[in-house]
């Protein structure tokens, strides 16, 4: 009922804001687990006209998440597996990540225009992965921000991302070309309009993992550092650095957590899942490499049941092994001596 009302309201921007305010009350923080519409029915994708079915869900006044499927890349879900977001500031909209394709970027921009009258002011990409910035073409008229490490990484990887996503997602990618960020941004406070944000830079999921915290609402966009109910992705990961970052992140006492992959939740649930998984990977890979296990044996090992119930199991684990096991293997093989 409430969902339907909100859906109708989103077509009328001013009402949407009013209704959201009424629903949320003060303070503006909403516990995503209880009072906000329990999201997380995946978007309804229309394959015939390449409609991602994007919906904006208000987590607090002016703070919206646009949820993707909690799954692996597939043409059936439009390869939309990321949660993006946008926040009104009074001076314009800050967009957090732009999705996996040009079409996604265009549909996200249209959704923002249906939701608020504020113009888009700038875009921020929280890390270098393709679904964080391949929608940038639809935002070419505003500053596109990322850390300098993320910008360098995107420059390096963009071509391979395009190739791989065209292969995995087919026509959903039509017309997509990577448009790289135009400005560097570092950690620290960020003031836009009436909003104050805190940007924290971590490492471990990638070389540069930004977390954006809206200080008014307490909503934190934690990017790729936290995976909820989903196997973490590791193409640029350093598990030990990642675990250290999660320790630091856990001390920030985040209220509402928006991971890039998996449901929005309160508190430490996703963080602890990610920790448990990375600890299992690191411990198991160390042990198996020391015992001389081959990659194919590692691929066929039995993990704790919890992990196999998460989204993207086992495909993501296959990738984890390809990305990380060779490093553990190298460390275990001692240098041989000349005879």
């Amino acid at each position: 009922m409430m969902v339907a009302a909100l859906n109708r309201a989103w077509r009328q921007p001013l009402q949407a804001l009013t209704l959201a305010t009424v629903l949320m009350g003060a303070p503006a923080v909403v516990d995503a687990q209880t009072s906000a519409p329990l999201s997380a029915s995946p978007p309804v994708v229309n394959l015939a006209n390449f409609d991602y079915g994007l919906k904006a869900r208000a987590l607090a006044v002016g703070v919206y998440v646009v949820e993707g499927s909690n799954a692996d890349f597939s043409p059936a879900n439009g390869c939309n597996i990321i949660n993006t977001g946008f926040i009104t500031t009074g001076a314009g909209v800050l967009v957090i990540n732009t999705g996996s394709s040009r079409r996604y970027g265009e549909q996200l921009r249209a959704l923002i225009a249906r939701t608020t009258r504020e113009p888009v002011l700038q875009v921020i990409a929280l890390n270098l992965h393709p679904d964080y910035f391949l929608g940038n073409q639809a935002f070419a008229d505003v500053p596109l921000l990322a850390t300098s490490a993320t910008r360098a990484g995107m420059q390096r990887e963009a071509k391979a991302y395009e190739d791989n996503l065209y292969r995995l997602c087919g026509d959903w990618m039509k017309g997509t070309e990577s448009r790289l960020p135009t400005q560097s941004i570092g950690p620290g406070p960020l003031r836009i309009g009436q909003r104050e944000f805190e940007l924290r830079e971590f490492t471990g999921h990638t070389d540069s993992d930004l977390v954006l915290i809206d200080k008014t609402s307490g909503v934190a966009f934690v990017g790729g550092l936290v995976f909820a109910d989903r196997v973490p992705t590791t193409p640029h990961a350093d598990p030990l650095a990642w675990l250290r970052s999660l320790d630091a992140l856990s001390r920030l006492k985040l209220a509402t957590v928006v991971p890039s992959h998996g449901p929005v939740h309160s508190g430490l649930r996703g963080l602890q899942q990610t920790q448990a998984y990375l600890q299992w990977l690191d411990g198991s890979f160390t042990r198996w490499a020391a015992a001389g296990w081959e990659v194919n044996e590692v691929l066929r090992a039995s993990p704790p049941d919890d992990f196999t119930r998460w989204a993207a199991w086992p495909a993501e684990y296959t990738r984890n092994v390809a990305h990380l096991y060779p490093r553990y293997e190298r460390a275990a093989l001692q240098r041989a001596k000349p005879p």
Partner: protein
Amino acid sequence: MALAAGGSPGVAYTAGPSARPAAGLPPPKADPFEGDPFQSFQWPELRKEFLGAAARTQFDARVRVQGPAFAEDPMNVPITVAVDLPGVQRLIVLVDRNPIRKVLELQPVAALPAVSFRFKLEQASPVRALAQTADGLWHVGGTWVDSAGGGCTVAGGSRADGSWTQTLGQVSGRIYASALPGGDSSARLRVRIMHPMDTGLVGGIPAFFVSKLAVRDAANRELLRIQTFEPVSENPVFSFEFSKAPAGPLRIVGVDNNGNRIDSRVE
């Protein structure tokens, strides 16, 4: 081509004249795949090129080939081959849809007919292991690996940054004699050899690869021989299996196609 009932799990066929169909049955349609479970158009040619037109082959589940369902890293596709047959003389690994299709050939000598390695995959393809037993018959197994492609036509990391010159021919390795998951193996030798393993398919970089390796025991007896080719991954890692732990230290000797020698000891 005659399709005949072969040894237990597989179907043998020979490349002889057509057998007469049984009375009352319609003549069988010619099978362009020659019984290949992967129905690969490359198979008949592959068989002739690498085994000879007269070779007898049999698809056989006892030749077990494991790989990943998809090649997350097409430069390093992990393959494990194990053959549950006695008296294997030669074990060849072929990849139908690679520009260079032969990956390696193992003569087990005193080792088990088994090998693990990583290789460069250019596109989705069957990966086959062909094991020849003492009777001359080739037993064929395989797996299908999906891939985004490009593994053979991209330069490796050490070629890109030039670091290969510092480490060429260095060997690291260990013998593992316990806690191996599954199988008949009671000891495993894992070796890593630093080498760019250039395919020759990247512009301006000629083929440059380890071509032969052998493992010898403390008494200098040869335990196994392996020929390796361009598709084997950069800085290759091999696992070899033994029914009982060989007397170490083991010596790894070999050569690349430019004549650079490899000679190291593994404890």
